[in-house]
């Protein structure tokens, strides 16, 4: 039960983060090249991703031995989770610029605006392709998370529903507020998802290898708490590095 709730939360949050990034590109494409092509591109990408989940996920669950599946998928989750966590630590400690959806939006709009005549037919190929590519590439990460978490816990349907719910919620909210996507606390969400994916990854690698975690599924909560502490300590330590460096350069400037 505990792992099911955490699984739903992890898939929903990961999908929401990726959806914000995809939506920025779709909105930029829609406002510059026309909404019809942008929405069609996004819809086709979502349909292709859904087919991939069905085509790869179902055989994965039924044909591959569960322990081997858990080790491979746990490793994949660790690669994703540790990468997200690393980026969130660097951003929170000031070593990396925050992901700014306004900058992404402005860049995409500028590229599309200079890419051709704005007097376009009802269907715009460039708008379609940009929206498709944005949704497909961001969505691939969601697909991997859905397949990984869903198949290792034998809850592929539930994981897919959680991802679909995130797409609907963020998509609906995004279309209402259109250009206010920069208000979404993306780094905090990325940090939370990174911690959850890392915790699930470590748990499944252990389970698949034959390691029995104390408390069974409850160990996931302990792992989440552990990685929260690790992230907090790492952020504090790396902030101190920046502060110390700033102090040294101030003294040197005098």
């Amino acid at each position: 039960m505990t792992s099911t709730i955490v699984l739903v939360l992890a898939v929903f949050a990961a999908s929401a983060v990726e959806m914000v990034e995809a939506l920025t590109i779709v909105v930029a494409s829609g406002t510059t090249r026309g909404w019809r092509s942008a929405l069609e591109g996004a819809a086709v990408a979502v349909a292709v991703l859904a087919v991939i989940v069905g085509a790869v996920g179902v055989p994965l669950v039924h044909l591959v031995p569960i322990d081997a599946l858990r080790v491979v998928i746990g490793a994949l989750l660790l690669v994703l989770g540790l990468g997200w966590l690393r980026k969130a630590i660097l951003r929170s400690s000031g070593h990396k610029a925050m992901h700014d959806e306004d900058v992404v939006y402005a860049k995409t709009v500028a590229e599309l605006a200079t890419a051709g005549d704005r007097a376009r037919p009802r269907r715009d190929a460039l708008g379609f392709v940009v929206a498709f590519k944005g949704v497909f590439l961001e969505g691939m990460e969601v697909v991997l998370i859905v397949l990984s978490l869903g198949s290792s816990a034998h809850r592929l349907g539930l994981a897919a529903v959680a991802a679909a719910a995130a797409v609907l919620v963020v998509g609906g909210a995004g279309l209402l507020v259109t250009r206010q996507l920069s208000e979404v606390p993306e780094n905090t969400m990325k940090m939370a998802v990174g911690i959850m994916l890392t915790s699930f990854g470590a748990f499944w690698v252990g389970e698949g290898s034959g390691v029995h975690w104390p408390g069974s599924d409850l160990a996931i909560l302990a792992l989440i708490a552990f990685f929260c502490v690790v992230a907090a300590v790492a952020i504090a330590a790396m902030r101190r590095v920046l502060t110390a460096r700033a102090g040294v350069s101030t003294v040197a400037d005098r």
Partner: protein
Amino acid sequence: MGAVGRWATAFGRFWWDFLVGDTPELFAGVLVVVATALVLRHERVVAVVLVPLECAAFVVASAYRGRRRD
């Protein structure tokens, strides 16, 4: 190179970027974590402590490596 070759190259490059990208140390770290879990599966207490500790060590080391240097 034919269409199949180009497709295979693009497919391989996608996965390389996705899994390794600019943080090869994290990918190597995950392989170490998996190896640790497999080797120590009968040493329950050691594995349960070591697997999360290794994950923590690799992410902190990778973040430190990626810190701003200017």
